[in-house]
């Protein structure tokens, strides 16, 4: 019996026409994908550069800490800036704990039955509700039914309802990324569910949970409709640079709302002011997102499996 013929090595690794065609294909696909990636970045750069160029004359420290003057045609944005901080902090102080705890229940405790499925469905549907609907709900529920009136409280709670389902969804995702084998290993040695969650699940999902929450900061800061209906006003007289100008029952100014006002409602505004307001809003949002990314990277470097 003769051995089977062996293809010489040189022949097995030559570039046949098929190989050449595959290489061309590779290059083409790569080029198209790269082009799309670049295309995606272009509008962002365009927006930012245009904004900054337009806003340049008005941008200054003064602009941040001064109050609007001369019927909002001049001056700064302090009351709106502080108002936005109030709204974001209070709304997340409500929605983050509730959302995270609810997600822990749904992911770690709830059995897969009709009740759980109904809650899941509700969460998903709520996440898809347009903000204007949340606005109407907030008006009915918090301003009128709960008698909070048009106030920071009512507006914050409306924003909280809006961000809640997204926080639940992102937290669940972070929890689900912790391998089930870890939980089983803990249960096998007699750990309770809560001991397992505290020792293993939470420490290893905290980066995802926090990122999800922080990303909702930008959403809460950017929305206009929910606060317009429930507690934001065009103008509110406030001391320049005052850190705590509002009470919970006050109405307040907010950046998103202020941008709308100075762009469309007030005549003869100094031209750079709306642009500068937009830059501050965008800058705040981007700063928060950057913080989220930094936090994620930092926590991921400590990732333990």
């Amino acid at each position: 019996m003769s051995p089977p013929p062996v293809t010489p090595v040189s022949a097995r690794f030559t570039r046949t026409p098929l190989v050449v065609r595959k290489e061309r294909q590779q290059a083409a696909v790569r080029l198209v994908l790269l082009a799309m990636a670049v295309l995606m970045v272009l509008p962002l750069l365009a927006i930012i550069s245009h904004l900054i160029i337009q806003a340049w004359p008005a941008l200054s420290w003064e602009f941040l800490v001064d109050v609007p003057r001369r019927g909002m045609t001049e001056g700064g944005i302090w009351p709106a800036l502080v108002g936005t901080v109030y709204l974001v902090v209070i709304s997340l102080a409500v929605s983050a704990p509730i959302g995270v705890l609810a997600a822990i229940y749904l992911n770690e405790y709830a059995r897969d039955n009709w009740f759980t499925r109904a809650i899941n469905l509700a969460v998903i549907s709520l996440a898809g509700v347009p903000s204007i609907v949340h606005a109407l709900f907030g008006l009915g529920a918090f301003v009128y039914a709960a008698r909070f009136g048009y106030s920071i409280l009512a507006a914050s709670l409306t924003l909280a309802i809006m961000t809640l389902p997204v926080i639940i969804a992102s937290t669940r995702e972070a929890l689900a990324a912790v391998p089930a084998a870890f939980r089983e290993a803990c249960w096998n040695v007699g750990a309770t569910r809560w001991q397992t969650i505290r020792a293993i699940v939470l420490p290893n999902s905290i980066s995802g949970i926090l990122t999800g929450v922080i990303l909702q900061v930008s959403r809460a800061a950017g929305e206009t409709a929910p606060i317009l209906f429930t507690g934001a006003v065009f103008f509110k007289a406030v001391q320049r640079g005052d850190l705590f100008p509002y009470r919970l029952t006050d109405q307040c100014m907010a950046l998103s709302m202020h941008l709308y006002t100075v762009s469309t409602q007030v005549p003869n505004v100094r031209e750079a002011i709306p642009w500068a307001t937009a830059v501050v809003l965008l800058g705040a949002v981007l700063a928060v997102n950057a913080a989220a990314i930094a936090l994620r990277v930092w926590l991921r470097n400590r990732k333990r499996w």
Partner: protein
Amino acid sequence: MDASTPKIAVQDLSLAYGGTEVIHGITFDVRPNEILGIIGPARSGKTSLLRCLNRTIDFVAGTRVTGEIRIDGADIRAVRDVHALRRTIGMVAPLPVGLPLSIYDNVAFAPRCAGLTRRAELDPLVERCLRQAALWDEVKDRLDNLGTALSGGQQQRLTIARALSHQPEILCLDEFSIAIDPVTTMRIEDVLRELRREITIILVTNLTHQARRLTDRTMFLWNGRIIELDRSEVIFSDQPSRKETLEYVNGIFG
């Protein structure tokens, strides 16, 4: 407790996932301080049976367990503290799982969950468990390294150390040697022979040689039924009472 009381008494145990029954009314005893081998082809219900013993099957949605399991005469469904029940059983899963904690914390986790927190008590316990799992010499200088950063075989031994850390009376090993080299396997087998003086061991294995070496009795489980349960000399001889056993042990099953 007199010597004739079985350590574990399983009576007419059935288990269904969803609507599908996978264990069909099995009855057997495990005697104190014996090593009981369980052999059987894939999907015969070996792992599921172990999960019934420590009631981690409760975590799987849609399961139905009927029949009775008694440990030292006590019905495990009636125990007051299911976590204490799980601590009387050490469970070693087939795939190594190092928890994302330090090596020390991996072993100290279970005692801590049970309320033991003093370093003076934990330190010797951790050392003893790691020694028993034949891991101490390799990790004694880096106990604060991550358990997940160990090699697969080391993680498996870490799993064994963890299963011993809550001082179980029963140790269940589910194909523990899949990820371990033969030399280490032999060391752990020696440890098991040591341990049996104090505890009862259930050894699920597909290595018939291992079962033959270690076990007093062996149960052949097939499709959720016990085909044969007898002294290992009989099961692995050329004349077990069932011809399926002979065929399976000799690898001509099917």
